[in-house]
């Protein structure tokens, strides 16, 4: 990898594609994050205050043995050591999370398609332990699985092909890629993925999280700079920290903040020695799953070219879900895949399988085959899973002779637009871009998190609610993931129930006052205003 050189003034003048924001986008970019209403924020803090006081009371009672302590504590001999469970995360876990824990880790007992079966469970000691009643709740409308194109099926071409490969190869691989785990199926898959993405070469790994966390350390090291988005996924953060490079964070999807960091990096270089950085790597995601926002890829690529840095794009949620033929966020903006240096994605979401991939130039992928920790130490993908990916990818590309794939991509886009429009009309606060199939609905108050999950389950709809460690403490939300397998009737039923629950819990906070996004022309002086 080459050293970074300082870009001279004349070269900046010649790069004329960074003139105006309007010139970079071929389609309107509608993203909105409505501001939290002041009263709601105050009441949320009041609620958290009450819960904190009761948390202190319960901790006091547990310490003085007035109440039985059911959570993990240190042993008697270790009571004088440095305390393990006194920080805020553990306090939150004991006193707030435990009370509403029944909305998470719900056991399902069928394929997670558009409808799912769930095992019913009750708790007699306020969520410390659960017992199964033995009943199975059938046909719950599944609004929580990342099943964007509906390939989580137990019947159909994908399942038959996977069953055939299972009878040929078995389920286990029993080795790593480097040793004896490199099957011909893996080679076939990698060629197919490279063709799907439009890159020279690709490599597939057994686990999506491990793809990020084990490959970023192989690409960057000490003396390199990583510029990562504020709201990046834990796998990217872990990979960045493991690599040992310097990490700087820019505000979420804020190109002025990113440009400021890039300028500072090039002008000042490394902290003490002032040497130029060996590499600058920008880490962004295609769709951010907690916000539902889409990265401003044309601007990121323009910045990357202007300042000669590298781009790592994590398309975990956007591959298969965006773009007219499902090729991801690069196709959605009409850009060329050669502009992105490292295209990473997962097979878990749109392809109904497991694992991750990295695509890029042939030299990069050949380097990763030898130096990536995941390739050397982790078991490779299981053959039936590989076959599921191959069949679903061919279906999306249209190579199986039908146009089922294209129909699904279009159905997902229609479902997204319809669902978002109806929810906005009802008056909920919805975050994110108009075209993203991830729809976060804001709840804010902690009691409503538990109440929403339970009320929706009573009405036979399964949703995912998200609270503190994954989101800022007052911005808890319910996250809907739309699927091409959802028919319009299912969506209408779900919308009717969401409307009812919204009225019951008073969730319709929207005052239709949207915060205008900073879509100003992209000149040198703009970033001064975002300094704080």
């Amino acid at each position: 990898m080459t050293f970074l050189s300082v870009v001279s003034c004349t070269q900046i003048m010649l790069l004329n594609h960074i003139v105006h924001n309007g010139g970079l986008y071929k389609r309107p970019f509608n993203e909105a994050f409505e501001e939290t209403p002041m009263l709601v924020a105050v009441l949320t803090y009041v609620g958290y205050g009450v819960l904190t006081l009761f948390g202190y009371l319960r901790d006091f009672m547990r310490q003085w043995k007035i109440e039985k302590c059911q959570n993990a504590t240190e042993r008697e001999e270790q009571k004088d050591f440095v305390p393990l469970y006194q920080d805020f995360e553990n306090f939150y876990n004991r006193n707030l999370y435990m009370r509403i824990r029944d909305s998470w880790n719900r056991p399902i007992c069928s394929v997670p398609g558009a409808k799912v079966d769930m095992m019913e469970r009750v708790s007699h000691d306020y969520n410390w332990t659960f017992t199964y009643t033995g009943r199975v709740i059938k046909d719950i409308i599944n609004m929580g699985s990342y099943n964007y194109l509906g390939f989580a099926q137990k019947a159909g071409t994908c399942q038959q092909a996977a069953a055939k490969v299972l009878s040929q190869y078995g389920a286990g691989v029993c080795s790593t890629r480097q040793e004896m785990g490199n099957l011909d199926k893996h080679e076939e898959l990698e060629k197919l993925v490279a063709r799907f993405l439009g890159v020279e070469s690709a490599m597939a790994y057994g686990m999506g999280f491990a793809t990020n966390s084990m490959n970023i350390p192989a690409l960057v090291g000490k003396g390199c700079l990583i510029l990562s988005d504020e709201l990046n996924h834990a796998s990217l953060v872990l990979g960045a920290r493991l690599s040992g490079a310097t990490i700087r964070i820019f505000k979420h999807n804020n190109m002025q903040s990113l440009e400021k960091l890039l300028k500072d990096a090039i002008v000042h270089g490394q902290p003490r020695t002032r040497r130029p950085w060996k590499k600058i790597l920008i880490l962004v995601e295609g769709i951010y799953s907690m916000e539902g926002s889409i990265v401003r890829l044309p601007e990121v690529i323009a910045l990357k070219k202007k300042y000669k840095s590298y781009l790592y794009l994590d398309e975990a949620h956007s591959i298969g879900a965006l773009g007219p033929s499902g090729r991801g966020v690069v196709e959605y903006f009409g850009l060329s895949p050669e502009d992105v240096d490292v295209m990473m994605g997962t097979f878990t979401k749109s392809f109904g399988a497991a694992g991750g991939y990295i695509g890029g130039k042939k030299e990069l992928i050949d380097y990763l085959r030898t130096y990536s920790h995941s390739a050397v130490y982790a078991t490779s993908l299981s053959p039936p899973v590989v076959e599921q990916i191959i069949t679903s990818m061919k279906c999306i590309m249209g190579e199986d002779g039908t146009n089922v794939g294209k129909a699904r991509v279009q159905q997902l886009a229609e479902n997204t637009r319809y669902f978002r429009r109806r929810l906005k009309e009802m008056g909920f606060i919805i975050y994110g871009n108009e075209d993203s199939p991830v729809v976060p609905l804001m709840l804010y108050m902690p009691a409503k998190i538990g109440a929403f999950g339970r009320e929706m389950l009573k009405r036979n709809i399964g949703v995912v609610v998200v609270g503190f460690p994954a989101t800022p403490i007052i911005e808890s939300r319910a996250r809907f993931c739309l699927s091409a397998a959802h028919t319009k009737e299912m969506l209408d039923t779900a919308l009717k129930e969401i409307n009812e629950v919204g009225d019951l819990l008073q969730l319709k906070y929207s005052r239709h006052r949207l915060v205008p996004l900073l879509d100003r022309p992209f000149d040198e002086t703009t970033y001064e205003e975002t300094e704080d």
Partner: protein
Amino acid sequence: MDIKRVKDYIYWLYYQYLLITCSYVLEPWEQSMFHTITVTVFAMVVYTAYVFVPIHVRLAFEFFSQIFGGQPESTVS
């Protein structure tokens, strides 16, 4: 029929109160403790308002009417 609607509406208001103050997630004995404290504080606020607000309003009204209306009035009386 109307009584039922009124009762449902009052129950719905109670449910909103439980959700906003997060006593929805508390155990029953904690809820009783919280309700007792809230009702006590609210009763004290109402009593204080009832006892003190009319007197203070009357005094304030006299003070301001003295300033604006009664300039020639002597303050030594």
